[in-house]
């Protein structure tokens, strides 16, 4: 199958395959450094990568400590979002009435700026981890829900009929056919959510927190510690990439068990 590459290449080729990516990243960082130098951009506006790197190593302990707290919020928020998204999506797919009743509400929920919600949140749930979890959930359940609905909806109706002839109840059809065939879409939603959860946590921490990377950025900003803000962004990016990679790893593992068709990926550019 030369047209297709198997999901799991061997390790050797994997490492070689990453070289261009690493090269690109390094090139971009160097370009940034040079541009900051050449255009004489002040470091309090946009610090050069070297400055950020120095800050990263200087504040390593501080950053990792706060990153740990942010990560805990994200994990909890993400778990809540997945449960919520699966529940809502199931309801939407299950009945048109549920769909019509719930869609306007969940869409409206996405248009509320957190800054408006903040007073209510702080007054009703306080400024502990709960309020951050709520903000993360607000940011992440929507892509999970929409993607899952799409996946559940475009199921092969001939398969549905087949299962019915075997005596499947609606519930069995849902569990044994619709869920497995919605997995690729579901994971697309999870990938978006994984990344967005990071910014959700930052924003949650912006409004009332005493720790976490968002808090760190909030207090570093007015003190014009731009390098620290960017160092926090670097840590956040690593966090986001890590979460994304984790979702991709789980996706690979699950989709090896539940392949949508053959267990292969089409790569047009590599024949």
């Amino acid at each position, binding site marked *: 199958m030369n047209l297709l590459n198997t999901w799991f290449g061997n390790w050797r080729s994997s490492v070689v395959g990453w070289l261009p990516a690493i090269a690109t990243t390094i090139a971009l960082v160097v370009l940034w450094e040079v541009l900051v130098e050449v255009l004489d951009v*002040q*470091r*309090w*506006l946009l610090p050069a990568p070297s400055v950020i790197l120095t800050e990263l190593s200087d504040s390593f302990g501080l950053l990792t400590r706060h990153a740990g707290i942010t990560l805990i919020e994200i994990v909890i928020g993400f778990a809540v979002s997945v449960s919520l998204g699966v529940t809502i999506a199931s309801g939407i797919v299950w009945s048109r009435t549920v769909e019509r009743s719930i869609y306007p509400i969940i869409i409206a929920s996405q248009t509320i700026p957190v*800054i408006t919600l*903040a*007073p209510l949140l*702080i*007054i009703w749930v*306080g*400024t502990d981890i709960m309020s951050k979890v709520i903000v993360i959930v607000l940011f992440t359940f929507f892509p999970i829900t929409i993607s899952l609905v799409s996946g559940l909806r475009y199921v092969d109706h001939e398969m549905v009929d087949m299962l019915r002839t075997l005596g499947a109840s609606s519930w069995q059809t849902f569990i044994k056919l619709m869920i497995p065939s919605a997995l690729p879409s579901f994971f697309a939603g999870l990938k978006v959510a994984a990344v967005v959860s990071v910014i959700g946590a930052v924003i949650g921490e*912006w*409004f*009332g*927190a*005493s720790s976490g990377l968002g*808090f760190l950025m*909030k*207090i570093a*900003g*007015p*003190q*014009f*510690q*731009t390098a620290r803000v960017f160092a926090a962004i670097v840590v956040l990016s690593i966090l986001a990439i890590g979460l994304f990679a984790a979702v991709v790893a789980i996706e690979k593992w699950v989709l090896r068990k539940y392949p949508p068709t053959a267990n292969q990926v089409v790569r047009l550019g590599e024949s």
Partner: protein
Amino acid sequence: GSGDPEDIVVTLDWFQNANHAGIYEAVDKGYFEDEGLNVSVVPPADPSAILSLIASGESDFAMYYQPDLLQARNEGIPVVAVAGVVQRPLNSMMALKSSGITRPADLAGKKVGTPGLPWNEAMLTTMLEADGLSRDDVELVDIGWTLNQSLMAGTVDAVIGVYWTHELIVLENEGYETNVLLPDDWGVPSYYELILVTSEKTVKDRPEMVEKFVKAFNKGYGQALDDPQGSIDTLIRLNPDAEIDEAVDRAGVDLLVPLWESNGQPVGSLVGERWDSLGDWMKAQSLIDTSVVPSDAFDSSFGD
């Protein structure tokens, strides 16, 4: 000063309010024009980016806060103050009258809401210590930007980081009586809440322009001083789209007027000792490095 007027951009520290009455008077009465300056006053796109805009030359002048200026200089941002506007702290601690809190000592065991910025926390610490308590005697709650609401809702007993010329009035208009604790009454050095800021480069390269600008600027505040309510009329007239809350600003300007020339200092003045005392206090609170030289942070030569 002859020939084409010079285009000047001034960025405000916040949306148009009573604090800006003087600069709009200067615009309205043509004081800037008289100096050959074509000034446009704009509200900030992002308040936290204002000093960056000044340093990068995007904006020529800005109105901003003295402690923040020192913090910016601590990080090497080349900005300087060229005139004082509000000559006392506006930032204060506030509690509902019903709470019975009238001095820092009353806060023992109470919940204090802060916006979560180190600056406010340092201020609170000093105020507590001035009245015989320590930071650990109160519970600090970071409530972000929801100070008023939290206070009104009773989630916290007191808040720090609110303006006694703005939030106080807002709360009163909402029917809440409050007690205000001023930081400079409780150990915090009296500082300039609002100053006129420009960049070191502007001061160096265009001193005459700065001179002319500050002159007209101070004249504007002088005019507002003479007719406070008239200056609010001007403010509203020049900013029809700004949704100015008249009820708050009319009351606010009366509180502000005495602050524009407090301590017997004329409008626009900048006094060196006050920079030093604030600088020393900020250093003691580890808000800035000891290497920061407060006297470099302002240039009072333009106001004369």
